[in-house]
């Protein structure tokens, strides 16, 4: 689909561990591309707890999830990594062999990247939308039930029901309301987490009769052949009412799923990628796994462990990227050559 890209290393996952790996690889003159299904960097820190303080990052008595991500981005900036957001790595094709590895990665939008080493920093797996356990919902997925809005046009002149009370639910309610034949927002309580200005805009539309707000939880679906015709709504008083609709967009947050990684032929231990503790390399030479996604005796799922793993993996990756060069150990405090790379000397 899009042009083929070539680089030294592709890092799958732009969580804290993937971001720090850019720095460690950068010091060794290794260029990186990062791919993440989320629309931004930071993995769990940015998606699950941006405002919560972390107390066990060495040298930072306290830093918030987002604060740490911002600093990691700043730290890796001198190495100009390329980010591919909103894309999931689906497949890895092995082109080379153990002595000269070469890989071709393909994302869900058909982009391909060729590289000499792959670093899987996929954490708990890719973030994917949670699906509400409404009986029979699978039959409508992709036709009438959508967990994300890819093309707004698909909702034109349809009766749309959006479920949820956060920013995604409110933003899409407001964006799709002008196109939809009728818009109904369903939420379990009359209180919203979303930004106040969007909540107010929604309430204005409801007050002027341009859309509906229904308080309750969806318990059933009605339709045929993948085409939805109505949803059942259980109100706070447990009474059930029916809302006619052709499209349902539930927003129940994200959950982490291992996803395609399970199909890459790597040795797994309890759904985690098995690695050695010298190089953090997987059962396929040239593919490394660092951070929450890997497993080895004594593993601790801490950000600090992931940083260490990235530093050691980088040493081995250097051999794959520059087989003819010898690596000399240097400190950032005293090496002018490292400082030049960092833009401080």
């Amino acid at each position, binding site marked *: 689909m899009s042009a083929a890209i070539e680089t030294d290393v592709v890092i799958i996952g732009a969580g804290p561990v993937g971001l720090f790996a850019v720095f460690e690889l950068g010091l060794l003159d290794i260029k990186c591309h990062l791919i993440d299904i989320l629309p931004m960097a930071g993995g769990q820190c940015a998606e699950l*707890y941006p405002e919560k303080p972390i107390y066990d990052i060495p040298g930072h008595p306290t830093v918030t999830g987002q604060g740490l991500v911002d600093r990691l981005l700043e730290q890796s900036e001198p190495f100009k990594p390329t980010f591919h957001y909103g894309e999931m790595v689906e497949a890895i094709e092995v082109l080379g062999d153990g002595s000269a590895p070469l890989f071709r990665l393909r994302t869900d939008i058909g982009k391909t990247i060729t590289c000499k080493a792959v670093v899987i920093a996929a954490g708990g797996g890719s973030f994917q939308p949670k699906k509400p356990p409404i009986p029979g919902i699978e039959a409508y997925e992709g036709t009438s039930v959508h967990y994300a809005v890819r093309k707004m046009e698909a909702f034109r002149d349809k009766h749309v029901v959006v479920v949820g009370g956060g920013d995604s639910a409110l933003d899409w309610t407001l964006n799709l309301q002008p196109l939809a034949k009728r818009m109904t927002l369903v939420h379990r*309580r009359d209180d919203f987490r979303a930004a106040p200005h969007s909540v107010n805009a929604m309430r204005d539309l409801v007050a002027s009769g341009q859309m509906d707000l229904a308080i309750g939880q969806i318990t059933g679906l009605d339709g045929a052949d993948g085409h939805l015709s109505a949803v059942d709504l259980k109100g706070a008083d447990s009474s059930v009412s029916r809302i006619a609709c052709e499209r349902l967009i539930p927003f129940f947050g994200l*959950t982490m799923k291992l996803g395609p990684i399970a199909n890459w032929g790597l040795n797994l231990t309890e759904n985690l990628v098995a690695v050695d503790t010298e190089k953090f390399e997987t059962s396929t030479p040239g593919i490394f796994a660092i951070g929450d996604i890997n497993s080895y005796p004594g593993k601790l799922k801490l950000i600090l462990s992931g940083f260490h793993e990235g530093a050691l993996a980088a040493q081995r990756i250097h051999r794959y990227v520059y087989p003819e060069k010898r690596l000399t150990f240097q400190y950032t405090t005293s090496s002018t050559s490292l400082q030049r790379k960092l833009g401080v000397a």
Partner: protein
Amino acid sequence: MPSITFIDSKGTSRVIDAEVGSTVMETAIRHKVPEIVAECGGACACATCHVYVDEAFMPIVGKPQAMEEDMLDFAYDVKPNSRLSCQIKVTAALDGLTITTPDRQG
């Protein structure tokens, strides 16, 4: 130690002695109680530790705080006695509490 009974969605019950000061979620995980996932480890960031609290104990256990109420939006089949078990601290007053778990945490 206060004793807590966990009843799963199939009706099987388990009586567990809970440690004062820990949370109901931690108690459940430590004793491998099914149907509580606790993906985020108790940070009130995942809603996969959703439980129903015995109505009789609701006045003692209390209502969720604002942050927990927000997280409950991500749980399914939320009822007036829904709570996130990682946000319930075990106290001596909880002796005899019954907790019911939903069949799915999402």
